[in-house]
């Protein structure tokens, strides 16, 4: 009997990029629902627009590069980029801002570098930074969480859609009326105007341990993140590094001067800290590779986030921190190469 020839190994591979990406998306579902609960349906519209432009951009670039678009779209990485971008944006964002960010992320940060696996920078963060700098007003239009005790005007679904599509608010409202600073914003400006941490905490935007609403979104992100850890989709080094790099300096400064600094708990549960640790920094393509390298990479990101929050002009420094550490990745990889078995170590018995 005759048989076909193949190459060892002859067992089916256990892992798959598409399956991995889908698991990442699934892990973000609880956080997405929490986001909609607290901040309204704007997140969903952002997600739809980001997804459309990410997928469209990817298909267009694959076509321009002379490749079949399905090979790139089939791994769902464009969808993950779109989702992470949507999480970074305020729920009230005009569609052209989301579109610009998505297109830059996919076309420039991903495909101009060679496509998935070849990009140096995290595409979602690169896209976010571009629109942060190009559309500063729109990207800082944060709304207050929908919690009963906050006296505040919330837009209806129709009004949200109208704003997303046209960028104009209903006649009776102004931007000032509907937007509020984020908790991190409030904390930063409060501390810099010589209020103490305790005083700033009395702001109704502050929640029990972080920012109101944000802390719960953070918890749901953490649930998703731990699930990914259990499933070994991500490894422990990067999240641990990010938390250590951020919380250790924050803790030290808080111990030294508790009035003038935000507590580590506040840092942990505000802004994009948890999202960064589990979902953004863990993007495998732009992160370091070796286990030691990942720890250094994570710590670097955490520390840079702390520096930007403490001394920088932006309220949350996650995107910049990630991009800066992306630049350092090749160097980190080079100096943290593991010792090959059979090299270096004295081979006599201990």
């Amino acid at each position, binding site marked *: 009997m005759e048989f076909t020839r*193949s190459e060892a190994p002859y067992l089916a591979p256990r892992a798959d990029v598409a399956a991995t990406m889908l698991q990442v998306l699934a892990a973000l579902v609880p956080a997405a629902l929490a986001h909609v609960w607290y901040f309204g349906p704007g997140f969903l519209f952002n997600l739809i627009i980001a997804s459309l432009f990410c997928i469209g951009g990817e298909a267009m670039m694959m076509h321009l590069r002379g490749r079949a678009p399905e090979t790139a779209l089939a791994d769902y990485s464009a969808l993950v980029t779109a989702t992470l971008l949507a999480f970074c944006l305020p729920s009230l964002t005009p569609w052209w801002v989301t579109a610009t960010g998505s297109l830059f992320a996919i076309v420039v940060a991903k495909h101009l570098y060679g496509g998935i696996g070849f990009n140096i920078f995290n595409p979602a963060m690169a896209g976010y930074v571009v629109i942060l700098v190009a559309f500063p007003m729109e990207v800082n239009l944060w709304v207050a969480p929908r919690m009963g005790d906050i006296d505040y005007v919330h837009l209806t679904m129709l009004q949200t859609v109208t704003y997303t599509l046209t960028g104009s608010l209903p006649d009776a409202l102004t931007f000032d009326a509907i937007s509020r600073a984020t908790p991190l914003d409030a904390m930063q400006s409060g501390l810099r105007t010589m209020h103490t941490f305790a005083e700033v905490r009395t702001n109704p935007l502050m929640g029990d341990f972080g920012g109101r609403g944000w802390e719960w979104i953070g918890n749901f992100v953490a649930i998703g993140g731990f699930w990914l850890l259990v499933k070994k989709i991500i490894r422990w080094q990067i999240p641990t590094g990010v938390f250590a790099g951020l919380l250790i300096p924050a803790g030290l400064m808080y111990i030294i001067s508790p009035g003038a600094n935000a507590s580590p708990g506040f840092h942990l549960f505000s802004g994009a800290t948890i999202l960064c640790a589990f979902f953004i920094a863990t993007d495998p393509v732009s992160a370091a590779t070796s286990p030691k390298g990942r720890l250094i990479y994570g710590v670097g990101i955490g520390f840079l986030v702390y520096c930007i929050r403490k001394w920088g002009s932006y309220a949350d420094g996650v995107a910049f921190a990630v991009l800066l550490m992306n630049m350092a990745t090749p160097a980190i*990889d080079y100096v943290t190469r593991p010792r090959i078995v059979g090299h270096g170590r004295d081979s006599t018995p201990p």
Partner: protein
Amino acid sequence: MSAPTYDLGKLHGGLRLTAHKEESTAAPIQHVPVPAQLVLPLTQHSGDPAQPVVDIGETVLKGQLIASPDGRLGAPVHAPSSGKVLAIEPWPVHRRHGDNAPCIVIACDGADRALEIPRPAACYDDLPGDLLFERILEGGIVGLGGAAFPTAQKLMQAASGDLEFLILNGVECEPYISCDDALMRERAREIVGGARILMRALRLEHCYVVVESDKPESIRALGEALAGVDDARLTLKQVPTIYPSGGEDQLVQLVTNREVPSGGLPSDVGCLVQNVGTAAAIHDWIVDREPLISRVTTVTGDGVAKPMNVLARLGTTVADIVAFAGGYTERAKRLIVGGPMTGKSVTTDRVPLVKASNCILVLGDIPAVAPEKPCIRCGECAEVCPVQLLPQQLYWYACADDEAKLRSYGLTDCIECGCCDLVCPSHIPLTADFRVAKARIREMADEKARAERARRRFEARNQRLDAEQRDRERELAAQKEHAKKAGPRAIAEILERQRSKDKD
């Protein structure tokens, strides 16, 4: 000594694979009857092909020498049954994936008459080590764990250094393969006997018999055998069931916590590893005078009707063995000789069973695998690599053909275990790429060595020509000097001589 202990060292990475061994170990080893025809390849070992010592038409007896290594690296081949030499011709072999190689074909007469080999006068205990090595070579013994390195040469090389431990490899970490398990259950006494012969030959005082923890019956059988001989030098050790603990270097690391140096051998750190099947074969030859003419093989996989372990004569074709095991099922699509991680895929079942064939694996079609995607730098491959390489970096540099970087990142240390392939989410055939890259850097190293030699010869030649030129000039100058000094008088003398000659 029958109480098993766990490993000392720790293996980095590795994978826990589904064993698939229950189907083939449900029944004891079955004996395949001698077929009508036996095909013996001349190369059943690492090294040079053996040379036939029989002619076509010659009658041979079971156990008779039919091919000899002739002084080069190799092992002799013996006739597995009696009959007539039908032909010495090319035949498909598994080593070449189904392509042809020279083989001796024997038509069996069915009588299975054995060559009378006189038992040695002395018990092997009294034989000196060197003589034991020669005896082992005469038996055609090669490593039965898969690499088929001639055992006698391996022992002689190891004996030249400082050896401390003999490690008997009963680990059998690859899925589907269970021939060593079956052998340990049924012939534990012979395995222990073989170990003691080896210890005598190499003058060793310590031996570890190592088994994976998923083989409780084998552990029990070996424990009983060891208790029977009551030799305190042998210890039974258990290791966790992780692939690829059974690799030679990995086993040395697990059992003794020593690392075999890169490019070196286990004997460099005082260890010698032998498969349990090799030990049993040594016992059979030295004590029972039966050369290596048969082996236990696992016939298994989705494509085989009745998976089992069989004892078959070398030279039995895979087709005959599978027929004995109930034939193919309709799922049979791929034939692999060896295990699912490191075996060789063959195109035809006419290939014969050889000394290295530890498993005949018939698998169904691989589930439709998506085409290879770009590497997403997830690092899973580095997590599972037992040698702590960075397969991801090796892949980039193999694509770039960067010989220096490939060497620096340790490509030559890759044991081709296949773990990285299984965990790669982009389904990159890493092991196959590394195999190709290794061949390429060997090629490039050869070219460099040749170029270096040519350059040296060129420079030597230029030096020689320059020296000759200088010598010539020196001589010419000396002659000129001489001519100047002797000059007019010499000319006058010559003219005088000429005139006197003319006169005569």
